[in-house]
């Protein structure tokens, strides 16, 4: 029954489009498929999410230029959930039930994802979530194109323990006080224990949202670092607080060679607001860096710069790409491939077709959607900040590694199945 609904929706939207876009002769039958973009364009998260919205639109243009999806022209439906979590749920419902979109690309914070998740499961919608997160979740209605902890946090810590990383023995786990940092740090603590680090050598510190004064914290870190062993800081500070944190770090003369700081939510975009000269050598772990050298990435960056200029985006003078943008780009393309494989926009068919999709990504690898767990196999890069705000890749995995949404470092996860619990079969 769902399927018929979907198809009806399709013909309907196609009809509407036929009226709307009668003139564009590009598409034989002017067939149109609506897709939703659910990113905050206002409120606190706009800082990060606006770029993803633009990237999604760029990718749609690109696909449409190449003849669309199965000959259907993509018609984006952009809404602004305004960093307001209940509004996310409302908008998701609207996209699926009112606009009848075939798929939704969106969300950044875990709470926004958790807020829309029940909606997608109830209405059997399809969501592509492009941001690294704490794991501990697999939904049959969601594809996670960002990193799970084992594709970001753990390798970063391993690197810092290695000789090249400086052989850190003491650890400061610093984060904004909410779920992603707490969970990540919990996983890391378990991991560190497994490597024989004692609790005495781990300091965990949290700051409130939008914290802007890091004097005390950095003083604490300096004191902690001067107590015997090589110390490294693992930062899960939330986007907005990073600028004051790094400015303070630089001005207090904490050098990466003494106390390296590795961050999981600081990329090119976040550093846009910072003078990076004092931060040279500080690290970040991602599955993509703008500075990666390969033809795909070069082409992609060119495309983005051109798009930004064409659309007169405010950031056009300094167009940046980053990991979540890449994840968005990959997600959209994989969806396209899956649709074409399934020869249908039907959610269940597309979901099935997603398994094992491959795509040559800007990170230089041909990455693959896991056959079961809805997460991508991604390569991991460790980058060191350069004076120009870009990253030097100082370490990378040999190839893509499989995501472990259920971290083995959380008790009880060993029992969990590495695929969606098909609980949404109620109706």
């Amino acid at each position: 029954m769902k399927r018929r609904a979907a198809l009806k929706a399709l013909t309907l939207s196609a009809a509407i489009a036929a009226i709307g876009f009668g003139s564009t002769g590009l598409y034989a039958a002017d067939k149109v498929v609506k897709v939703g973009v659910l990113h905050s364009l206002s409120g606190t998260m706009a800082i990060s999410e606006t770029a993803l919205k633009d990237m999604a639109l760029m990718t749609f243009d690109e696909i449409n230029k190449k003849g669309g999806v199965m000959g259907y022209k993509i018609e984006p439906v952009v809404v602004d959930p305004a960093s307001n979590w209940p509004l996310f749920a409302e908008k998701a419902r609207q996209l699926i039930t009112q606009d009848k979109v075939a798929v939704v690309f969106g969300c950044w914070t875990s709470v926004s994802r958790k807020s829309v998740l029940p909606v997608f499961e109830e209405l059997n919608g399809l969501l592509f979530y492009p941001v690294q997160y704490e794991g501990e979740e697999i939904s049959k209605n969601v594809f996670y194109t960002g990193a799970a902890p084992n594709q970001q946090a753990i390798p970063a810590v391993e690197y810092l323990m290695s000789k090249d990383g400086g052989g850190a023995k003491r650890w400061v786990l610093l984060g904004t006080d909410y779920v992603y940092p707490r969970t990540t740090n919990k996983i890391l603590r378990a991991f560190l224990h497994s490597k024989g680090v004692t609790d005495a050598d781990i300091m965990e510190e949290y700051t409130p949202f939008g914290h802007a004064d890091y004097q005390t914290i950095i003083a604490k870190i300096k004191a902690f670092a001067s107590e015997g062993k090589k110390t490294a800081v693992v930062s899960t500070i939330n986007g907005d607080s990073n600028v004051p944190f790094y400015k303070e770090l630089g001005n207090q003369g904490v050098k990466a060679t003494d106390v390296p700081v590795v961050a999981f939510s600081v990329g090119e975009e976040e550093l846009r607001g910072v003078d990076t000269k004092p931060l040279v050598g500080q690290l970040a772990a991602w599955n993509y860096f703008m500075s990666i050298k390969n033809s795909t990435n070069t082409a992609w960056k060119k495309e983005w710069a051109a798009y930004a200029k064409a659309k007169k985006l405010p950031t056009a003078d300094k167009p940046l790409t980053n990991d979540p943008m890449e994840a968005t780009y990959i997600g959209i393309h994989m969806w396209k491939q899956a649709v074409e494989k399934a020869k249908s926009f039907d959610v269940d068919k597309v979901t099935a077709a997603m398994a094992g999709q491959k795509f040559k990504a800007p990170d230089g690898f041909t990455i693959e959607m896991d056959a079961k767990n809805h997460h991508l196999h991604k390569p991991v890069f460790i980058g060191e900040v350069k004076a120009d705000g870009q990253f030097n890749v100082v370490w990378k995995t040999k190839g893509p590694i499989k995501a472990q949404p259920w971290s083995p470092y959380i008790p009880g996860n060993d029992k969990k199945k590495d695929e969606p619990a098909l609980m949404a079969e109620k109706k």
Partner: protein
Amino acid sequence: MRRLYGPAGWSAIGAAVLVMAILPHFLSSYWVTLIGKIMCYAIVAVALDLIWGYCGILSLGHGLFFALGGYAMGMYLMRQIGREGQYQSDLPDFMVFLDWKSFPWQWWNSDHFGWCALLVVVVPGLLAFAFGYLAFRSRVKGVYFSIITQALTFAAMLLFFRNATGFGGNNGFTDFKRILGFTVTSPETRAALFMVTGATLLGTLLLARWIVTSKLGRVLTAIRDAESRASFCGYNTVHYKVAVFTLSAVICGIAGALYVPQVGIINPSEMSPANSIEIAIWVAVGGRGTLIGPILGAGVVNGAKSFFTQAFPEYWLYFLGAIFILATLFLPQGIAGLAQKLGRGRA
């Protein structure tokens, strides 16, 4: 002298009841949840109007009472998930991540609907009573009161952000499955919640109407207009203010409790000062000191928000901002007061 409502009023209410009963069966789940949500907001707006419009106390902390009610209900809904969470544990998932082995004290008895329903009323009530009593006794008035209520809700928000507080940190509660054994997502449950909300809204309206038309209502207005005269007349203004403030908070709590199962999430952002200010704005736009006004206000502002965020995602804030500015400038009496407003000059 003053009846609760004239025949016209009553028939309107009757009509409303009818619509409430029929509507949900014809609307898509989107509209049902959206309207349900807005009705919850409308209840809050009426509650705020009761103290602001009639007693001249502007609370910028009503989002807190709303959220507290929501959390109380949320606890129950979390318990109703049972073992269907990601971890098939009796504990809610977030407790499992933090590997807590048992429920913290706040969760005592939270698997009983009755208990949570009690909390919905008592927690906001007690907080409002204690806070109000202290504040009014020491004659904290006007803007001062507004600002410390803002501080209160802000502090509460930070507190609830902490995972250690035991309410799921900034993710709050979500992914509810059942309420009183019924599936939250089933159309029937939705319809039921919708009707209950509608009924509560009407109930609130009538209660408020009854209060403001009673002598109590006149005393409240008297306190608003000339507090010291009122106390020289022998009215203990502190008690009056505390009573109405508490009542208003309780109503907010109930609204919150109805809100959570319909939107499917409760988290600390409901306590952010911005949300509480918005509540005040619904009332102002709709018309202070009228009871229908705030309902209109909540409807118009949220309706506009839902529409604009869809139609003009890039520019909707301009529209919303403009509405607020123009409403305060040209409709001091709000939409409801528009009629009388005509012809009167600026203050």
